[in-house]
């Protein structure tokens, strides 16, 4: 159990200087929704704006040259971080856009492996975030394909018992989350991806809750596409990533159309630049790409393995602490096998929204509600949960504060 030096890390995150309600310090346990930003990330964006700002790829003046170098440099940083090739990295505005890009691009392509029709299937799971569910519902609607899904077990795992029925030659796409944003479960991706490959299905990995938290090598996962957001990994808002295998990106039609993604254009038709340009129409989110690269540098300076160890240590401690509370039920795995730093729970007699409000009085920020995973809520028969999620700037004192806060909540609402 090795914890990071949180005091030093926290000093890089100016938001922790802020005083919360009742002069409380900030106990930020909502990194699963969005992470806080270190000075280094803000400084990188600022540096871009004050020294390099110009539209990339379109000019040969000095600023345009420097802006292009900064933006393409950011792409290389992301590629190296993922074990990918540079031209396999596409910048989007968010994981949500990355996933929609895929669903629309598949419809636009509609040939070969991207052709879907009646009888074809898309395989998901009950623990998907809406962003990895509704785009596929819509693709199914457009094409006539059918949705199938893995169920979840009572203890918060993917139920793989039916895998050989669910995955077949009819399966064209498998889209799964690497780590559940509600349960904290880490899914056995390589195992499932191997089976998917045998059936010739494309594998889309929603890595929103994994890439920020543990080392991810796309070349080893056996998947075809990986999507995630910058804002959940210390990066700016407004930046997301799509990684895809070169040969697939080459065969796919674009999603957004406009400047910089073309080869030639007439009034009536157009042809496309090679990937990644083909998928990045318009003046891109340059400063945000540069900010994301700074976030990655920050994480790599710590080391992704250390980040993961830190979160495992915190989560172990939190599971213990929370389970001492009478009337508290963990929703999701209660042990640390294949599990990350996201923890959902229910409290007898106290609605999550009410509980959260009391915790907020102590400066404790947790998330409540359905966490954009409504089908999962229905499965567990709750309208929502309270969720604590951890990152590099959390320490054991934060978890103590949470446990104490929950006890105080129970007292406030006179629940024993």
């Amino acid at each position, binding site marked *: 159990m090795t914890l990071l030096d949180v005091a030093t890390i926290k000093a890089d995150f100016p938001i922790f200087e802020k005083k919360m309600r*009742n002069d409380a310090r900030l106990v930020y346990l909502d990194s699963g929704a969005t992470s806080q930003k270190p000075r280094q990330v803000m400084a990188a964006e600022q540096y871009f704006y004050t020294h390099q700002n110009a539209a990339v790829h379109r000019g040969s003046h000095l600023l345009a040259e420097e802006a292009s170098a900064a933006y393409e440099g950011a792409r290389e940083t992301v590629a190296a971080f993922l074990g990918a090739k540079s031209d396999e990295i596409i910048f989007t505005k968010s994981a949500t856009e990355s996933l929609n890009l895929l669903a629309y691009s598949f419809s636009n392509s509609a040939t070969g492996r991207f052709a879907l029709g009646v009888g074809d299937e898309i395989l998901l799971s009950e623990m998907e975030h809406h962003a990895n569910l509704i785009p596929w519902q819509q693709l199914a609607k457009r094409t006539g394909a059918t949705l199938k899904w893995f169920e979840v077990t009572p203890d918060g795992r993917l139920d793989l018992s039916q895998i050989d029925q669910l995955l077949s030659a009819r399966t064209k796409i498998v889209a799964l989350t690497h780590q559940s944003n509600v349960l904290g479960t880490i899914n056995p991706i390589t195992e499932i991806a191997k089976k998917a490959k045998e059936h010739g299905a494309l594998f889309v990995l929603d890595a929103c809750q994994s890439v920020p938290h543990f080392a991810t090598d796309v070349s080893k996962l056996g998947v075809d596409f990986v999507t995630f957001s910058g804002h959940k990994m210390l990066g700016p808002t407004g930046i997301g990533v799509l990684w895809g295998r070169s040969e697939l990106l080459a065969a796919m039609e674009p999603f957004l159309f406009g400047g910089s993604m073309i080869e030639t254009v007439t009034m009536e038709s157009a042809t496309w630049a090679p990937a990644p340009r083909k998928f990045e129409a318009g003046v891109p989110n340059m400063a945000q790409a540069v900010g994301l690269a700074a976030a990655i540098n920050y994480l790599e300076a710590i080391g992704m393995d250390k980040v993961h160890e830190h979160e495992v240590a915190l989560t172990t401690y939190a599971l213990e602490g929370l389970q001492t509370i009478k009337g508290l039920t963990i929703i999701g795995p209660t042990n640390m096998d294949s599990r990350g730093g996201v923890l959902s729970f229910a409290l007898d007699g106290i609605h*999550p*929204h009410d509980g959260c*409000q009391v915790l907020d*009085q102590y400066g404790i920020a947790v998330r409540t509600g*359905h966490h954009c995973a*409504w089908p999962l809520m229905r499965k567990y028969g709750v*309208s929502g949960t309270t969720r604590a999620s951890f990152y590099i700037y959390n320490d054991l004192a934060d978890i103590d504060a949470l446990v104490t806060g929950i006890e105080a909540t129970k007292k406030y*609402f006179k629940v024993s």
Partner: protein
Amino acid sequence: MELDSLYQEVILDHYKHPLHKGLSAEKTVQVHHVNPSCGDEITLNLLLEGDVVRDVTWDGVGCSISQASCSIMSDLVHGKSVDHALTILESFSELMSSKGSITGDEEILEDGVALAGVSKFPARVKCALLGWMAFKDAALQGRNEEKK
């Protein structure tokens, strides 16, 4: 604690012992509303007799604010004309958007004034309004039903 303005005793009482909870068999119209950001849901039965609210019953899941508000609302509109009920709703909406600047008219809102503190917590205003919006929707639909 600032919180006490939110969770007044009368709110918690309504939460624990909600009025008119449990759906009636008879109804003019039934509506189902959700609060998409937190997942709270309410089903509401409205029984009209001409232009008069004969009965409002409801069921659903939600936080203390949404449940108490629904309880208070269903009691307030009971026996009133639809138009009258809608003016009460208007007063309540005004209170909710006041950011703490008004305390609400107890003559009109009765126990509803206990929800005044909610207006200082913008994220909770939607909770307090869930039942009222369901009622409004039902009232407008119900009135059309009655006119047929």
